[in-house]
C-alpha cells in the first residue's frame, strides 16, 4: 500500500463511517473528523508510520486533508 492509501485507511477507521475522502478534501468540513477523532487520527498516524509527532506540530491545519497529512509525513521522513 502506498502512503496515501494507508492514510485514507486510518482516516476511515477513526471516522467510524463509510467515507472515501478525496486527497484535497477538508476532513473537518466534510464531517469526516471532529476534535476528538482528530486525536485518534494523530495517534493512528504515529503508530502506522512509526513516528512521534511533537506537540509543536499538533495544529489541526496540518491534518486537514489526506494531501496535507501526506506532505507532513513526507517532510518528516
Amino acid at each position, binding site marked *: 500500500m502506498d502512503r496515501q492509501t494507508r492514510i485514507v485507511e486510518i482516516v476511515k477507521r477513526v471516522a467510524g463511517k463509510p467515507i472515501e475522502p478525496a486527497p484535497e478534501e477538508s476532513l473537518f468540513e466534510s464531517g469526516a473528523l471532529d476534535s*476528538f477523532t482528530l*486525536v485518534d487520527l494523530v495517534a493512528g498516524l504515529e503508530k502506522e508510520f512509526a513516528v512521534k509527532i511533537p*506537540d*509543536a506540530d*499538533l495544529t*489541526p491545519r496540518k491534518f486537514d486533508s489526506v494531501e496535507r497529512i501526506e506532505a507532513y509525513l513526507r517532510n518528516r521522513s
Partner: protein
Amino acid sequence: MAWLRALGSYLPARVVDNAELAPLVGADAAWLLRSTGIEERRYAAADETVATLGIAAAKNCLEAAGIPAADVGMAIVSSGSAERRFPGPASTIAAACGMAGKPAIDLPMASAGSLFAIALAAELTRAYGNVLVVASEIMSRVVRMDPAGRDTAILFGDGAGACLVSPETGFAEIVDSVLATDGDFADALHLDFDAPLSMDGRAIILQASRKLPRAIGEVLERNRVLPTEVGTYLLHQANLNLITRVAQAVGAPEERFFRNIARCGNTSSASLLIAATEWWRGAGGTLGGPIVLAAFGAGLNWGALLAR
C-alpha cells in the same frame, strides 16, 4: 508542608438548559448534549460581578473551614473574565471577606488559574500562613450568543469556587505539583479587550489530550503512585469527552474522575474548585486514596497536583 483545608463554591441561581440556549446559537439541543456532555449551566444575574460571585464562594469556604478571615494571611484570585483591567477582583473579594490589609493577588488566568493558584499557595503558606484561593468567572458575558459563537457559547457557564490552603492542618496534604506553559499556542484560546472569546477548539482538544495526561503521569510517577491507586481525579470541567479521553490515557477507571459538567458547564478557572467542593462535601471526610487535581487552558497553561 501545606494542606487542603476546606473548599467552598457559589453558583448563580439562574439555570440555562440546552432547550433555552440551543436556538440562540443555532444549534440542536440533542447535538449540544452529545458534543459536550452539558445539560445545563448557570448564568449570573445582571447585578452580579466576578467579585460578588467570588465573595460568596470565599465566605462559603471560610465557613466550612471554621476559621475567621483574620486568620487568613493572603488571598489569590484567578479569573479570566474580570470586568476591568485593574484592579482585578482580588482586592474587592479580600475586603468583603474581612481581610483588609492582607495581600490579595490577582491571577488573570482562565481555566488552569485555580490549579496554579493552589500550587503557588502551597509555597506561600510558609510566609503567609493560611492562603485563600478563589476562582471566579462570568463566562456568559464574554462569549458570543449567536450562531457565530456557537462553539464557545454552548460550553461555558458562570460560577465561583474557593479553597483554603493551610500550613497546619487539612483533609489532604499537598505532596507535589507539575505546572507548565506553552506560549506557542497562545492564540488558540484568547479573550481580547472589546471582543468575544476566541477558541480554536480542535487545537485545544488536541493539545489538552496530550499535555494533561502527561502532567498527571509525571506527578504520579515521581511520587511513585500508580494511576489506579488514586482515589479521585478532580479535573477542570472543560468537556465530558475530554475527561473520558484523559481517563483512558492515564489508565485509571473513568468513574474515579469526578464530573459535574452536566449541571455546571465549563466555568473556566472556577470549574476545578466547584467540582472539588461538590466532591469534598459528598466524600464526608473520606478520601479513598490520594487525590489528583488537574487543569488545562488558555496560555497554554496546564498542570497536575497530588494530595493525600
